């Protein structure tokens, strides 16, 4: 009894039920009858490697019940590729899009999407769909990873629309680290951007502008530190001048632990500034960031022994 057992369309198929092989199996799951039945028909079509319209319907059923089953997705893609009537665009828009919006944390959905979009050869409509995804979770790792794949696959480095998109998301949440990372990806992942001192200077200004909005935002400080470490033509003195506004030593006002941290790194490399580095690290350990006290003391020991850490 069941959807498949009662269907004339499936009457020719002998279902294969799950075998545990042993009296005491491991990790047995209480399946629903619906899932157990559909899987028993899947085993049968997989056994004969049937690639057909009804297999598309069957795999759709199973994916809806368990979107994490990896071979079902691979089997579905093989079936789609084998059927002359199957439309990959329809698969994308009418099947995958709504499913993706329901199952936010899933590897297989995004792998399937990459296969489809590679085969279609166009990213038309992708940015619009991803807006809906990011509205559900603006920090979803799978979605960002997929977006970075689009950038690499379709060579969208330095694209104005990609940069505008990061600007929009950072505007909505200045602490969205994924958006910050994507900005780096678009600007610098092609390898040329970091040697362009004009671009690096522009990004430095961008990061500083965002720090002014939220002094304790780790994402923006990390971006700035990355530019200082890897970018061409960044004047360290300019960065120091900026950071001291957020981290006054000698009793001045401290607005950001990240500014203290950065100053300690820069000062720690200069024997003449050792006292300032020590002061910044002591402020972090004792007053402003005690949850990381063991780390700040480790940095302090390095500065005192003349081995500067980052």
């Amino acid at each position, binding site marked *: 009894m069941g959807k498949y057992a009662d269907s004339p369309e499936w009457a020719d198929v002998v279902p294969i039920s799950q075998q545990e092989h042993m009296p005491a199996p*491991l990790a047995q799951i209480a399946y629903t009858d619906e899932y157990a039945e559909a899987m028993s028909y899947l085993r049968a079509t997989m056994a004969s490697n049937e690639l057909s319209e009804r297999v598309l319907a069957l795999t759709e059923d199973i994916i809806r019940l368990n979107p994490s*089953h990896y*071979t079902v997705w691979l089997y579905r893609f093989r079936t789609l590729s084998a059927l002359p009537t199957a439309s990959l665009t329809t698969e994308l828009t009418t099947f995958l899009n709504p499913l993706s919006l329901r199952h936010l944390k899933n590897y297989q959905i995004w792998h399937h999407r990459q296969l489809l979009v590679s085969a279609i050869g166009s990213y038309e409509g992708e940015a619009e769909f991803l807006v809906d995804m990011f509205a559900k979770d603006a920090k979803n790792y799978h979605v960002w990873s997929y977006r970075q794949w689009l950038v690499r696959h379709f060579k969208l480095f330095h694209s104005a629309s990609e940069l505008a998109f990061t600007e929009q998301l950072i505007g909505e949440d200045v602490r969205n680290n994924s958006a910050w990372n994507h900005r780096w990806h678009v600007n*610098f992942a092609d390898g040329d951007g970091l040697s362009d001192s004009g671009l690096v200077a522009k990004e430095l200004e961008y990061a500083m502008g965002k720090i002014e909005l939220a002094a304790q935002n780790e994402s923006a400080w990390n971006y700035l530190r990355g530019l200082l470490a890897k970018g061409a033509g960044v004047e360290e003195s300019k960065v120091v001048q900026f950071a001291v506004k957020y981290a006054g030593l000698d009793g001045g006002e401290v607005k950001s632990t990240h500014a203290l941290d950065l100053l300690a790194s820069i000062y720690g490399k200069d024997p003449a500034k050792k006292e300032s580095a020590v002061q910044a690290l002591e402020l972090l350990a004792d007053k402003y960031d005690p*949850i990381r006290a063991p780390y700040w003391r480790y940095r302090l020991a390095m500065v005192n022994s003349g081995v500067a850490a*980052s």
Partner: protein
Amino acid sequence: MALNCAKQKTYWLRCLKTFLPNGYTSMDSNRMMIACFIISALDILSALDASMTTDERSSYIEWIYASQQDTGGFQGFPRTPDANPEPNDSHSDARLTIIWEPATVPSTFFALAALLLLRDDFSRVGRRECLTWLTKCQRADCSFGQNLNDKGEVDGGYDTRFGYLAMHIRWMLGGDLLATQEPAWPDVNIDGLVRSIRALQAYDGGFGDLPCSEPHGGYTNCAVNALAIVDKLADGIPDEDALIHWLVLRQTRQFEPDNEDDEDEDEEQGGFATATTSSAIGFNGRCNKIADTCYTWWICDTLKTLGQIELIDKSKATSYLLNKTQHFIGGFGKYPSDPPDIYHSYLGLAALGILGCPDVKPVHSTTSISVDAVDYLEKVIRPGYS
């Protein structure tokens, strides 16, 4: 609060002996991983022997072996029997199902780890077949994937999970020993894998899934532990100071989802977590995210592998697990007051084993299984390979 050992054991015994709730259907193709977590958790709690009869232990071992493929490796769920089996041919691979039930890198790692925990002697592991198959799971760019398909292509993601697991399979099966024998057995490309991992360190010090991707606690852990098990930490980490910096910055007192009025709410609002009264420190997996049980494992364990676990306050990291996410029915939730699930319960327990909690066995940093089990591998299994 201490670890509630009795409830923790009850939780895992229930997972071992009864059907897992329907919600675990999403793990249906990864049952080998769940199986390994259940056995390993009971081992970490020193409760494995008391949890099963001799017959049950044999049955569990047989169940794992039943997922082994003649062409090497294990699949993640019970094999579908041949619809028309040849008489007396219980393990024919000349079946069409094999196309869609491939051995996978994760399932092979978890099967071998579970066999070790059950003190199997590996005598029935197709060692050379598995190591040969493993070399084929490495792509031209030297990353590893999930499985090999019927056309000989590598399927699955490109991230560090697969390289991490592959290097541990190679170690468990003594691939490193075979590679130095004459005639040398085909080996994976270690230098290539190290290069591919080295390219993953991001501008802020952590490692992401691909070059220039956002750093993530899980991928960072897999990257570092893959390098550690092949003794290539120095070659694979471009900037260790930046990595350590990124790891310690993952400590946070933002514990509650959708609730910014946390005990140290100022951190989110632009102030500082200056209060020293709270005894708990959690870990996030990415910058500007909240704490989650599993990242206490991923981050602390990475520091442990790097020899830098003392850079965090272990008692406060322990307090987060015991007082915030330990559940009264046993296990651990993802966030405070979440119901327990197998993944977070296992990694919470493994983290306690890294942090030196006296109620659990010491846990080996690159594998997440007990130091006992790794000793058995090193002292009993691996010497048998030479």
